[in-house]
């Protein structure tokens, strides 16, 4: 998968987890931009993203994530291994 494909799939996963099909997702989108994205929802989101992409994030990696684009980069890096 390339980064664009990962971004598309990430956007789909985010919309499904937050039950809101109209959320607009860009690389710079972060929890601050999405009403539904609180600390509890974040945990559910990570769980679903890991399932969808068959990857596992370490705690140290999760802490550094600032936005959706960085999440896509991390998935790309992990999938390439």
């Amino acid at each position, binding site marked *: 998968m390339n980064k664009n494909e990962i971004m598309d799939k990430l956007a789909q996963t985010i919309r499904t987890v937050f039950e809101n099909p109209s959320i607009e997702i860009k690389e710079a989108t972060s929890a601050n931009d999405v*009403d539904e994205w609180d*600390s*509890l929802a974040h*945990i559910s989101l*990570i*769980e679903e993203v890991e399932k969808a992409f068959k990857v596992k994030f370490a705690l140290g990696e*999760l*802490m550094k994530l600032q936005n959706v684009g960085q999440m896509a980069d991390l998935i790309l890096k992990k999938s390439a291994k």
Partner: protein
Amino acid sequence: MQLRKLIQDRISAGNLNIYDRQGEHLLDTNIQREYQCIRNYILSHVKDSEVIAIKATKDYRYLLTVLACMEIGIPYIPMMVDYPEHRVEQIREDSHFKLLVTDDLLSAMVQNNSSGRELGPENPEATSYIIFTSGSTGKPKGVMIPRKALSNFMQWVGDEFTHVTSQDHMLQVTEFTFDIVLTDVGLFLQKNVHVHFSNFNSDLFRLAFEIESNAITTLSTVPNNLSMLLSDVMKDRVNLSKLHTLMIAGARFSYGLYNKCKSHLGTSIHLYNLYGPTESTVYSHGKKMTFREDEDCAGLNVTIGKTLPNVTAVVVKDGEVKKTGEEGELLLGGIQLLSKYMNDPEKTAQALIEFQGKTFYKTGDIAFCDPRGDYYVIGRLDDTLKVRGFRINLLDVDSYIHKLPYVEDCATIAIPHEIAENQTIAFLRLKSPKTVKEIKKDLLEYLLDYQIPEKMVMVESYPVNSSGKIDKKVLKENYLNSIKKTGAV
């Protein structure tokens, strides 16, 4: 217990083992120097009869300021660094605090070379700190806690946690506005634990990382944080094996969480369920779990245990003390009671009552006591509830939402939530369209993050009762039915 001597001895003894928010192990000589500077600055700028407020980042300098106030005997008002200006002004008007200690001022204070003034006599009746909590009218109440109450509490911390030593590492998660932080202060003063200041705000992955990477052994936190640390997504990601002492407080410790602890943490952990309103100095009750269900639980209720030394409790209904097993309102008495609410004789008179010749604080909590003398809290009498460990009042929240010029009407309800204990939902009728994001942003001017309803639902009308008022009970039932149908939570 002589608080002043305890603090002086601890600071001068060294081996302070304080790590700042960046994780840096601070030199004793630096901490001791900064402590003296902060202390002397306060001494030279504030009289014993005056009050200071602290609105700074939760870090070691906040701790040093709190300790300096406790040593000198000057009451402090803790605030979070991001308190909205509106709330700071409300507190300023109420308390007339002499000094507002901010991060910038602290940076200047630690360069202070003045020698201060002589310490006044240590007065057990004097106020130690004032914590502002939610009222029901939009105006926070200042709970004034005397030094004798804090001393009694500190004595309990020293006597109870005998297994905690200078080898232990404690993560300072809680903000100083939340009085459970004083347990951590007590452990620092009396058990010489290593203190790590946490960067945790709401990202549970960060909390888990900090616990693991700092090999944390001792932690005070609220049930929902623990619940998330033990959730499926966390449990195979974080190693909690070093943790041996967990002090859980601030909200109801559920039977589900009790069982989760038992299976995920094992039964050798020192797990405490602690209870107490701010008005009775941190905790009035505490129970170290034995992990024997007949000792820890009554049905699906987990006990808060017995009262702390010099604290008394009675369960009362219709003016009579209830028998073992019977429910009623929990009244608290003894040395740890607040002296009063600041400048509010009316609220003080409502909360502090004379009962059978003694003064008691009406907690508003519904409780019962079992034959062993262990207490159980099972509900509330009013609209006050806990969200993420913080006390909020739904009427208070409504009163602030009504301040927004585009809000026609509003009703906030709370529904049970598996992890957060309560989830708040505001039903709004607007004069002009606004997005949830815009409303939440506007509310941040008046309310703290945890007070802002997590969900907002726009409505055209409300169910009303026979007197024409919004019927919150029906509103809640309708909402619960609607989410059952859609499966949304």
